[in-house]
């Protein structure tokens, strides 16, 4: 790296880019609109001055966003070993299919006779989800994983209420390793969260679990494989025990990629499980959504599925969109019918893989993770004895006395061209590093990754401080001051905020 300074502030293809508010102007526009006729308005006088927002001509706009895009890492560019996120390849066939006008250009409230193919697709997706999970019903409308969680827990609450036990069944058991959405969801619905500790093998402590059982237990929320990347061996016993006291089993399906096609959650005694289409079924993460979280439901919970319901009468599809005396639906979670755009993508993916391919997906995902575990556990500290499932958990014991922590290690990975793995989650180990390669990584890519991780570990232990403490050296930005961002929040552009120039 040279100390050569450019005049523009750019560095070759690494281009700096200001805000649209600094580049554009209110008078400019990249859209040709016809001139209004000047008709008398019928707005009751409720008009505003022109919004003070800049416009850009199309060439400028395209350049602006292309330059921004160049500052992003992405799965298309390289391995993104984010544990519990399942960053697999996003097939472009999915994008093409979702953009067919017959799917992308239809309105949710068009006459049902004009969208039979859309309902047919949703029905077909539902069939795949139900068959893969071994469950009789699925709610398609939840808009994301956490929303699907809410759906599952709402169904459970509705079932408990139908039994007249809402006042007495208030406790929900959640492992301490659970993702934060689990207790947040339970609390939102008025439940009391009771944490179950993990045993030395990273799984639910069965004795501690049994000790917490009682007829005031509404449900257990388990992730399986769990957030440590391990399959809960006692899961059927846990399910039986919960059912015995009259409770329900909610399963967080974030890690379904490990078992799809090889295990059906229905066979494990699950009552409700959300599925992240953006994880297991390859719909793109989009830089933070949109996701989709359809939730499969057991026989016990099926009657309470949220609106809308897709029904078929004499070969014709219809939508049940309102609560009637005919259904016990707990109501509506969202306007309209769910993330159709993601349904098309997911079904395209499922059809492409088929049941044999999906089974191979789980096998390769688990194989890849175990290959990484086996190749790194002699130099990094694996938190649990293998085998793992689709993700391998390490902790920071191997960095002890180096002065380098998990965060520093992750930032050094950025310089090596990798997006860091999931850090500091789950909370059950110190300085967690959760690595999930997924099945769409080749052996060559994994070998390269393993090589780099081993070298980094070596460097850390050898006291190569600068490499870690000042990392990342090569990213579009160095480490950012998150304290400043939180203490003095600047959440929108205002003239004369932070003086530092970006140009």
């Amino acid at each position, binding site marked *: 790296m040279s100390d050569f300074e450019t005049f523009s502030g750019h560095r070759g293809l690494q281009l700096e880019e200001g805000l649209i508010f600094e580049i*554009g102007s209110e008078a400019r526009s990249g859209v040709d609109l016809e001139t209004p006729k000047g008709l008398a308005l*019928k*707005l009751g006088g*409720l008009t*505003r001055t*022109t*919004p*003070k*927002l800049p416009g*850009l001509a199309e060439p400028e*706009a395209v350049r602006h966003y292309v330059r*921004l895009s160049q500052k992003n890492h*992405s799965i298309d560019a390289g391995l993104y070993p984010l544990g519990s996120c399942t960053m697999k*390849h996003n097939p472009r066939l999915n994008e093409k299919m979702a953009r067919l006008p*017959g799917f*992308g*250009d*239809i*309105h949710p*409230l068009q*006459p049902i006779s004009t969208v039979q193919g859309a309902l047919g697709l949703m029905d*077909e997706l539902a069939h795949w989800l139900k068959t893969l999970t071994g469950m009789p019903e699925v709610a398609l409308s939840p808009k*994301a994983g*956490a929303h699907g969680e809410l759906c599952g827990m709402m169904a459970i609450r509705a079932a408990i209420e139908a039994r007249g036990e809402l006042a007495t069944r208030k406790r929900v058991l959640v492992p301490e390793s659970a993702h*934060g*959405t689990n207790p*947040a969801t339970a609390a939102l619905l*008025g439940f009391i*969260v009771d944490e179950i500790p993990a045993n030395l093998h990273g799984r639910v402590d069965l004795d501690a679990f049994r000790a917490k059982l009682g007829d005031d237990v509404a449900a257990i929320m388990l992730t399986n494989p769990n957030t440590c990347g391990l399959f809960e061996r006692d899961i059927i016993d846990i399910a039986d025990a919960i059912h015995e006291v009259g409770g329900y089993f909610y399963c967080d399906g974030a890690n379904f990629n490990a078992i799809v096609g090889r*295990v*059906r959650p229905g066979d*494990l005694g699950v009552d409700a499980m959300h599925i992240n289409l953006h994880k297991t079924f390859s719909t793109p*993460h*989009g830089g*933070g*959504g949109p*996701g*989709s979280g359809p939730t499969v439901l057991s026989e016990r919970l099926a009657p309470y599925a*949220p609106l809308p319901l897709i029904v078929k009468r004499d070969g014709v599809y219809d939508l049940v969109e309102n609560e009637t005396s005919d259904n016990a639906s707990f109501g509506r979670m*969202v*306007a*309209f019918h*769910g993330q159709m*755009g993601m349904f098309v993508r997911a079904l395209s993916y*499922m*059809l492409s893989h*088929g049941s044999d*391919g999906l089974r191979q997906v789980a096998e*390769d995902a688990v194989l890849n993770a*175990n*290959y990484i575990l*086996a190749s790194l556990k002699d130099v990094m500290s694996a938190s649990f004895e293998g*085998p793992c499932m689709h993700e391998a958990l390490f902790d920071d014991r191997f960095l002890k006395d180096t002065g380098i922590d998990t965060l520093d290690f992750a930032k050094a990975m950025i310089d090596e061209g990798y*997006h860091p793995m999931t850090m500091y989650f789950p909370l059950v180990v110190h300085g967690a590093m959760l690595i999930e390669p997924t099945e769409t990584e080749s052996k060559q890519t994994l070998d390269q990754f393993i090589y780099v991780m081993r070298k980094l570990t070596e460097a850390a232990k050898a006291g190569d401080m600068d490499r870690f403490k000042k990392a990342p050296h090569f990213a579009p930005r*160095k*480490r*950012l*001051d998150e304290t400043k961002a939180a203490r003095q929040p600047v*959440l*929108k552009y205002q003239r004369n905020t932070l003086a530092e120039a970006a140009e």
Partner: protein
Amino acid sequence: MRYLPLNQHDRQDMLAKIGVGSIDDLFVDVPQAARLKEPVALPKHASEMNVERHLTSLAAQNTAASSVPFFVGGGAYKHHVPASVDYIIQRSEFLTSYTPYQPEITQGTLQYLFEFQTQVAELTGMEVANASMYDGSTSAGEAVLMAHRVTRRSKAIISGRLHPHYRGVIENLSEMGGFELDCVPITVAGEEDLGGKIDDQTSCVVVQYPDFFGSVNDFTALAQTAHDHGALLIVVFTEAVALGLLKAPGDMGADIVVGEGQSIGNGLNFGGPYVGLFATRQKFLRQMPGRLCGETVDQDGQRGYVLTLSTREQHIRRDKATSNICTNSGLCALAFTIHMTLLGGTGLAQLATLNHERMLMLVEKLGPNLAPVNETFFNEVTVRLPRPAKEVVEALAARGVLGGIDVSRLCPDVGLENYLLIAATETVTEADLDAFALGLQEVLS
């Protein structure tokens, strides 16, 4: 299989390195009873060509909005989205990137979110906006929960002119969370006395702007009444383009403004994915749900952006979080901000004016016998027909016109079977207006 890079040779090598004989040895923790010996009973893998064939035939069974005169609104609106929007959002670095938790290598995402937040704040007339939510309806639900937190009260008053699906979402959340709701009965037009219902137990009043039936109302007085009682005014919108022309809810005294951003940058997509917009006052910042992007500097003093104030969110506060929300609607927010940038403030105002004029023209064509119930409107009106709207809609569809929504489809059993909800955006042509007016005339005669 085209998405799986490993071959049998690789697999053998890797199993050897791991030290097991077969892949089954890695699934050893799965209880015997639950092990599937074979792939489940679903079709086997298929080529791209065959998948395309199958899905294309399903798509062909649907009537695309662009292919017919189109007047369907009711919370999702057909607008023209410039071609470059879809190309930009499909760039690898936007489409296949993850949530920007490692800000050094996701400044692209973070900067557009910052620009997006600024745009939303300006359009709503509010001090701060978040980085988007799932959609308008869940944003409305979250707004009510936020009002309860801020006021430490738990009773919400819901206008009868709120989109029925949005009301359903709020009803569901309130029932599940043990909160009280006062839902005003549905009326299509005329005065709605919400102010009279506010008391010292009220946490918020929720109204829609323009309302579900299309009317545009001034909420300034209502905001004052709410504030006099220590309650908040929540204004919901489902047509974001309206904000280019209509007085901003923030300027009427709204405390929380939420709604659907689909109209800008995003297609109809049969209901999703969409993008929820959420804005509020600075003083309520810490009670606002969802992700927030903030400006800061890096170690070299360069301006940069990060997700901030995350301690409100579920992954940190867990059972004390402001909401269980995990994600925003990133790519849809990107589409919104690109389109908004292409339009600029002047462009959006012009687009909004065109929308309003289309509806003025439609109303004129429909004539006095089919006058809207609305005294004011933006690009949507409700008309009372002499016959049930459901059959009229179907008859129009048979004539190749998608002529609006039967109100009773969303508001059943309240005597609104004869009401038709009609939208007209800038995509409507003179020929479309004629086809609709003519078609309606024929169907009703």
